[in-house]
C-alpha cells in the first residue's frame, strides 16, 4: 500500500558506488577525513620535524602550550607533548587495530565454523562464547592482565579476547542463514570440501558483516586499551600510548592540566572519527540498518490543502467525502496515492469500498480521520464531513475527540492491531475512558458487556486474556467491541475479515451486519472481495489506481457492471466446485491488461 499507484515508475536511479555513498553521508565523510589525517600524521612521525619524544629536559618541565619550541608544551619530565602525542597515537592506533584484527580473525573463525557445522560443535562453541559474554567486559580483561602481567601486548590480547564474542555471534548468525542457500548446496554437490566451501562460498558473503563489526568495534577497542594503559596495566615506560600519557600526567592535573587534557582530547577525537566512519560504513554495507526518511512515523496526517472546503454542509448524511486527494510525503514532495474521492454514507447504510491491493482503499479509509502515519500521509485536497461538519479543518484535539467516539475503526489483522501487552478487557475499557467520564470498575464492567454483545462467551474471564491467548475470530470480535465502545455513528472496517478463516469470516460479517441494522450504524466496509460486498453492502464504490471508477447500488453493479475493471473483479469471485474452470474463465479477462 506504500507504493504510489498513480505516478509513473521513476526512471531507474543510477547505482552509486560504495565510496560515493559514503561520501554523500557528511558525518561519515568528516569522520574519514579526520581519521585519515590522524593516521597519516601518526605514520609520518619518524620524518616529521619533531623532537625525540623521550628526550627529558628537567629545567623546562610542565611548560604550557604555545611555549617557545614546544607547541603543546612539555610534560612532568620536560618531554615535548606534541611529539609524544604523535608517537603515542601511533602506538594506540597500532594496538587498537591489532586487537580488532585478532578479535575479528578468531571471532569470525569461531562464528563460521559454528554456523556452518551446527550441531554439537555449534552448541559447544557458542556456549563458550556466551560464557565470555557473561563477564562485565573490562573485568575479564583485567583478570587476564592480572595473570599475564601488566604490559601493552598482554593488554592487547586481553582486549582482543573479550571482543571475540561480538564477532563470533554476528558471523555465526549470517553463516547460519547462508549455509542452506542454493549456491552452497551446489558447491557441496560439486564435491568441494567443507573447508573450500567455507572459504570460497561462505566467507565472501560474510565479509560485509565482518567489516561492519570491525568498523563499529575498533573505536571501542582503542578506548579500552587506552583505559588499561591509563590504569597502568597496559603500556609500560618507556613505551607510551595515549592512555598512559594521560595516566602519568594525572598526578599534575591541578598544576598542569594541559598535560592530561591534550591526550584525553586526542583519544576522544580519534574514537569519535572512527565511530562516525563506522556508522557510515555500516549504513552503506547494510542499508536495512538505516532507518530511511520514508519510514518516519508521524503522529498525524498532515493537511496541506490549497483551497479550504466549506466548513459545513447542509442536510448531509452521516459521512460525506468530497473530492478527497491524499498522498505520501516522500521527503522532497508528495507522492499522490488517491485522487478526487467522493462518496456519501447514511445511517444504517453499508458502503463497500472495493479494489485490489494498492488501489488506495486503505489510504482513503485512514485519511478520513487523519490516521495515515507511516509513511507520513498528506491530504492535498477535498473535505470530509461528519454530520455535515468538515473535520479535517478541526484542531488536532477536536479531531482526537472524534476518533473512536463518533467514528470508529475495525482493522485488518487483529493480532497486530491489538496491543500485545495489555489484556483485551483493559484495551476496551481504555477506549471507553478516552471519551467518557466513569470509574475504572464501571469501564471494565462495560467492557465485559461489550464483549458479550459481540458474542464472546465467558466474557468476564476472557477480559483478562492477552491478544495472543485468543483465536483470530475472538480477537476480531474484541476489535469490534472496542469500536463499539463509545456507540459511534460511523464504523470504518478496513478489510476486517481478510486475515481470518473462511468460516470465521462469514460470522464476523454477520456480526457487523447485525450491529449496523440494530444500532443504525453507518458502515464503510473496505475489501478486495466482491463476495463480501454482495453479502452485506447496500452500495459499492470500485477503486482503481487511486480513483473511484464506478459507484452505485450493489445489485445494479453486480448485475450490470459498467467499468471494465469492475467486470474483472466480479469475475474473480470463484464459485464452489468450479475447479480449473475458474482459471480458464478469468485468464482472458486479464490478457489485455497485461496483469
Amino acid at each position, binding site marked *: 500500500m506504500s507504493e504510489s499507484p498513480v505516478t509513473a515508475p521513476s526512471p531507474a536511479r543510477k547505482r552509486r558506488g560504495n565510496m560515493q555513498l559514503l561520501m554523500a553521508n557528511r558525518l561519515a565523510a568528516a569522520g574519514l577525513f579526520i581519521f585519515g589525517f590522524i593516521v597519516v600524521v601518526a605514520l609520518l612521525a619518524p620524518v616529521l620535524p619533531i623532537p625525540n619524544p623521550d628526550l627529558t629536559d628537567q629545567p623546562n618541565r610542565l611548560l604550557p602550550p604555545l611555549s617557545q619550541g614546544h607547541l603543546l608544551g612539555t610534560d612532568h619530565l620536560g618531554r615535548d607533548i606534541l611529539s609524544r602525542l604523535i608517537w603515542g597515537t601511533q602506538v594506540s592506533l597500532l594496538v587498537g587495530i591489532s586487537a580488532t584484527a585478532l578479535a575479528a580473525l578468531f571471532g569470525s573463525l569461531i562464528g563460521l565454523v559454528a554456523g556452518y557445522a551446527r550441531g554439537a560443535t555449534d552448541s559447544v562453541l557458542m556456549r563458550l562464547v556466551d*560464557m565470555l559474554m*557473561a563477564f562485565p567486559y573490562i573485568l575479564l580483561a583485567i583478570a587476564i592482565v592480572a*595473570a599475564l602481567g601488566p604490559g601493552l601486548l598482554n593488554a592487547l590480547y586481553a582486549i582482543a579476547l573479550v571482543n571475540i564474542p561480538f564477532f563470533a555471534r554476528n558471523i555465526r548468525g549470517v553463516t547460519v542463514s547462508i549455509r542452506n542457500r542454493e549456491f552452497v548446496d551446489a558447491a557441496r554437490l560439486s564435491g568441494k570440501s567443507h573447508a573450500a566451501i567455507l572459504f570460497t562460498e561462505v566467507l565472501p558473503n560474510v565479509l560485509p558483516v565482518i567489516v561492519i563489526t570491525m568498523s563499529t568495534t575498533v573505536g571501542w577497542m582503542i578506548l579500552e586499551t587506552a583505559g588499561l594503559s591509563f590504569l597502568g596495566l597496559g603500556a609500560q615506560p618507556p613505551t607510551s600510548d595515549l592512555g598512559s600519557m594521560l595516566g602519568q600526567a594525572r598526578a599534575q592535573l591541578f598544576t598542569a592540566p594541559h598535560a592530561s*587534557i591534550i591526550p584525553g582530547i586526542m583519544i576522544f577525537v580519534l574514537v569519535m572519527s572512527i565511530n562516525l566512519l563506522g556508522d557510515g560504513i555500516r549504513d552503506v554495507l547494510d542499508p536495512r540498518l538505516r532507518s530511511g526518511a520514508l519510514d518516519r512515523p508521524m503522529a498525524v496526517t498532515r493537511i496541506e490543502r490549497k483551497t479550504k472546503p466549506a466548513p459545513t454542509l447542509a442536510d448531509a448524511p452521516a459521512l460525506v467525502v468530497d473530492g478527497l486527494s491524499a498522498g505520501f510525503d516522500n521527503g522532497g514532495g508528495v507522492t499522490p496515492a488517491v485522487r478526487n474521492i467522493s462518496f456519501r454514507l447514511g445511517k444504517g447504510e453499508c458502503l463497500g469500498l472495493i479494489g485490489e491491493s494498492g488501489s488506495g482503499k486503505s489510504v482513503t479509509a485512514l485519511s478520513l480521520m487523519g490516521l495515515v502515519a507511516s509513511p507520513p500521509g498528506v491530504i492535498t485536497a477535498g473535505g470530509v464531513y461528519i454530520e455535515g461538519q468538515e473535520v479535517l479543518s478541526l484542531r488536532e484535539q477536536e479531531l482526537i475527540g472524534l*476518533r473512536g467516539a463518533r467514528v*470508529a475503526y475495525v482493522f485488518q489483522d487483529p493480532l497486530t492491531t491489538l496491543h500485545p501487552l495489555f489484556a483485551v478487557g483493559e484495551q476496551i475499557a481504555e477506549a471507553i475512558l478516552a*471519551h467518557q467520564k466513569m470509574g475504572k470498575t464501571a469501564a471494565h464492567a462495560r467492557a465485559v458487556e461489550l464483549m458479550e454483545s459481540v458474542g464472546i462467551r465467558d466474557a468476564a474471564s476472557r477480559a483478562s486474556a492477552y491478544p495472543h491467548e485468543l483465536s483470530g475470530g475472538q480477537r476480531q470480535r474484541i476489535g469490534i467491541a*472496542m469500536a463499539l465502545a463509545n456507540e459511534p455513528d460511523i464504523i470504518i472496517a478496513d478489510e476486517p475479515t481478510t486475515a481470518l478463516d473462511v468460516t470465521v469470516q462469514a460470522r464476523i460479517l454477520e456480526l457487523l451486519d447485525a450491529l449496523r441494522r440494530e444500532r443504525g450504524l453507518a458502515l464503510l466496509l473496505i475489501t478486495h472481495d466482491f463476495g463480501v460486498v454482495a453479502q452485506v453492502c447496500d452500495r459499492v464504490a470500485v477503486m482503481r489506481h487511486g480513483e473511484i471508477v464506478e459507484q452505485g447500488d450493489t445489485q445494479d453493479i453486480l448485475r450490470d457492471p459498467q467499468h471494465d475493471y469492475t467486470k474483472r473483479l466480479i469475475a474473480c469471485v470463484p464459485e464452489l466446485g468450479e475447479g480449473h474452470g475458474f482459471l480458464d474463465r478469468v485468464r482472458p479477462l486479464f490478457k489485455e491488461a497485461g496483469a
Partner: protein
Amino acid sequence: MPTYIAKRLLAAIPVILGLSIIVFLVMKLIPGDPAQALLGSYATPDNVARINRALGLDRSWPEQYFIWIANLLQGDFGRSYVLNRPVLDEVIERFGATLILAGAALVLCSVLGILAGIVSAVRQFGWTDRIVTFFVLIGISMPAFFLGLVFILFFAVQWRLLPASGMYAVYGGGDLPDLLRHLVLPASTLAIVATGVVARLTRAAMLEVLRQDFIRTARAKGLSENTVIYRHAFRAALVSVIPVLGIQAGFVLGGAVYIETVFQWPGLGQMLVKAVSTRDILLVQGGVLIATSVYVLVNLLADVAQAMLDPRLKA
C-alpha cells in the same frame, strides 16, 4: 511466575560454574611457578615443594578446580597475602562501595537514556533528535577516565562545587548527604558515558514500535498523543530496552574500575587495579568472580522483568 523465576535461577547455575572455570583457567595462565613468585628469594626447592603441597598445586588441574570450588562454596576465597586478610572480607567491603556507585550510575543512565531515546524517536530528524544523536556520539566516544578528570578540573578545582575524591569527607563526614555529595561527580561521569547506548537503542526500539499497527489502533481509539507514546508505544519498547539495561549493568560495573581510580572511590575496581599491580592473584580472582556473579544475577533480574512486562514470554 514463580516457576519461571525458579527456571531462570536453575539456568544461571551452569553459567556461574562456567564462569568459575574460565576464571580458574585464566589464573593458570600465570607464567612461572606461583610458589616461586610467592616465596621470592626464599624459594629453595624444598620450600617450593612444601608450598606446592600446601596450596594443592601438586595435584591435577581438575582436582585443583574442585578443591577450589568446594572452598568457595564454604565462603573460603583464600587469603590476600598482600593485605593479609581473607579475600572474601575485603571483596565484600569494597563491593558495597562499588554497588553504590554503579547502581547510581545505572539508574541515572537508564532514566536519561530512555527519556532521550523517546524524545529523539518521536521527533525523528527534528532538532531534538539531532541534539540527542550528537550527545550520544560524544557519550560513546568519550573515555570515562578523561571525562572524570575534566569534571574534577571544573567542578572540584575551578568552581569548588563538589569534592573531587573519596567517598566521605576525611573530617566530619560520614552521613548520607556527605556520601551523596561525593557520589555526584563519579556517578554522573559513569552515567554520561553509559547513557549513549541506552538512548540509541531506546530510539531504535521506539521507532520500531511506532510503526506498528497497534499504535494506529491506539490513535484510532481517540487516545491523546501522550498516552499513545508513553503508555502504548513505550510499554512495548521497554520490553526490548530492558535487556540493554542488563548489559549496561555490566558496563557500569566494568567502567567503575576507571571511575574509582580517577575519583579515589574505595570500591572493588580500585582494589582490583592495585591487586593486579601487586600480583595479588587470589584477590583478583575473588573480586572478578563475585562481581561477575552479581552481573549474571542482574541479567537474570532483567529477564524476569522482561517476562513480567511481556505475557508472551512467560510461557
